[in-house]
């Protein structure tokens, strides 16, 4: 798999918040048609990494390559122009807007200068239906009245409406029920199969092993390993997450060589 060029690649990325140095020389690659799982303990820096990719945070230094070419991403607008979609862990929905309005935020459909509410409403309906949402009373309900899982579904639906090249999902199934989780995992697989590069963050290793092609483990802000899923066991991954190394696995020492 490593013979294809990554769709998106980071090299030697560092990020600090004031005195807190969160990401250390992080290398990351997302390949087209593959699901890359990003795992790590709470506070390892996974969300920070996602936000750095999406332009929400500016990295302190490091390289950012997209389709092999160096790019600069100054903000989320730049990332989405490149075709990168993100589901943030802290969802980032506007509570004062309704579901349809949130789903199309920043990419509203228009008829001339007038918003095309009917088209947006039907598309939103379709997208939600496909994610097995059954309890939402109305797509015109304000997001502030949604349950935790319903919100998460809206955030996911929002990001898969678009034909994007890379999708980053930060713990997308954390609040989801059994059926909804199933749908999202299927969706992730379908996205990858259609050639999209997917980065999936999850603490649920069963899910990770089910859908991921590669696993990148972060330990205290450093990449502890970057391996193909088939080459590791769940126990080894847990070890990587909690200690940063795995005795049976010779990856922690030089993670970059495995790419």
């Amino acid at each position, binding site marked *: 798999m490593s013979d294809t060029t990554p769709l998106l690649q980071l090299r030697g990325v560092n990020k600090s918040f004031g005195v807190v140095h969160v990401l250390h020389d992080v290398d990351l690659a997302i390949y087209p048609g593959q699901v890359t799982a990003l795992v790590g303990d709470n506070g390892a820096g996974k969300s920070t990494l996602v936000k750095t990719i999406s332009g929400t945070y500016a990295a302190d230094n490091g390289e950012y390559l997209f389709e092999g070419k160096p790019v600069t991403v100054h903000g989320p*607008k730049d990332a989405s122009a490149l075709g990168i979609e993100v589901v943030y862990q802290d969802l*980032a*929905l506007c509570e004062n*807007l309704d579901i349809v309005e949130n789903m199309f*935020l920043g990419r509203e459909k228009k008829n001339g200068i007038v918003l095309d509410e009917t088209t947006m409403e*039907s598309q939103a309906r379709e997208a939600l*239906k496909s994610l097995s*949402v059954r309890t*939402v*009373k109305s797509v015109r309900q304000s997001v502030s009245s949604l349950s935790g899982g319903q919100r998460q579904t809206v955030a996911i639906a929002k990001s898969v409406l678009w034909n994007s090249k890379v999708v980053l999902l930060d713990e997308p199934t954390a609040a989801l029920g059994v059926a909804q989780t199933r749908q999202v995992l299927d969706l992730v697989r379908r996205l990858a199969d259609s050639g999209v590069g997917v980065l999936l963050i999850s603490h649920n290793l069963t899910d990770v092993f089910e859908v991921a092609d590669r696993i990148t483990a972060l330990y205290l802000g450093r990449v502890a390993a970057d391996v193909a899923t088939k080459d590791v066991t769940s126990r080894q991954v847990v070890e990587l997450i909690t200690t940063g190394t795995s005795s049976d696995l010779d990856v922690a020492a030089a993670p970059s060589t495995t790419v």
Partner: protein
Amino acid sequence: MTDIITDAEQAGFANDLTQSNTLGDSARAYVQRVRGGDMGALPSILGLVVLFIVFGIANDRFLSNLNMANLATQAGSIIILAMALVPVLLLGDIDLSAGVAGSTGAAVMGLLIVDHGQGWGVAVIAGLLTGAVIGIVTGVLVAKLGIPSFVVTLAFFLGLQGVLLKLIGEGGSVRINQPVISGIANNNMSVAAGWIAAIVIIAVFAALRLLQHRRKVAQNLQHQPMAVVALQIVALAVVLLGITLVLNQNRSVNANFPIKGIPYVIPLVVVLLIAWTFALGRTTWGRHVYAVGGNAEAARRAGINVDRIRISVFMMCTTMAVVSGIVLASYGGKVSTASGGGNTLLYAVGAAVIGGTSLFGGKGKASNAVVGGLVIATIANGLGLLAQASWINYVVTGGVLLLAASVDAISRRRRSASGL
């Protein structure tokens, strides 16, 4: 409700309100909504109604044709200023300088007409441009430098008073006697024009509403039953025709100087209200204003250029504030060095807030400004008829403001109690 949920199950996701297809259903749903505390504009209108009753009882001229026309013109400038502020408040910002900026624009207009012999068209455009420039500078300072809008606009509030003094210092005031400008607050539409305008508005509204309904039904989207749509159209027609009828009567107290027709201020406010409602409700820009106000970070992550929205909002605000300044100048016959200063802005913000706009951003509508502006103007109007000692005026103004706001607050209470 269980039924609906079960239905939803059967119909897949898209159940919504497409089910309630009869007027009866709709009425029941409305009653339930009100019971649940969700009353839309009702509470603030209720506050206004209470004021009307109080003043109507206190002075028998309050409800006279003449006084209703007075009220409309007196409310004009504060309604427009409050409307101008709504988008700024939607962002969670404030523009303390809007009143003074409006008067600065009006002064520029007045000076161009008086001292430079320009036509009113050119002068008005120059005034509006002045407002736009002030707004852009404010917006840039707030958005790009990140200075709190309270501080930036406090600085402009002071600075622009200086500019106003400099501009009109020598004369103390700029006389506004250009017929068109002065006519805004002082002249009336002809009786015929009034009727035509009312009927056209009703017809257009009806057509748009029915078209929209048809489209929604066709696409099986969430929609109200036909009966409700019809009811809305009829209600609008009754209100508009009623107002037109009243204002088309002669209301002069002076037999040999008849006054009738709709004051031009009213169509101006109506046009601005429609334009503003459209811009906030039906355009991408408006959607983004709400989004930034609701959650600026989420808006940014959705790829919205938050700075640009903020700058545009401040620009729109001061530009529209100039319109308010011009209406005020038309009403008073001049722009003076104190115009737009003092408590003008507190009143305007108060109007928007009483109407239901939140100071924390994300919640509010242009129509809030109309209701709130009417409340504020009604207080001054009603008290004016009572002619009490100054201190009583102050106290009663405060008291009545509280009364209107309490009616509003109390009638909204159940809403928050029920967690909405």
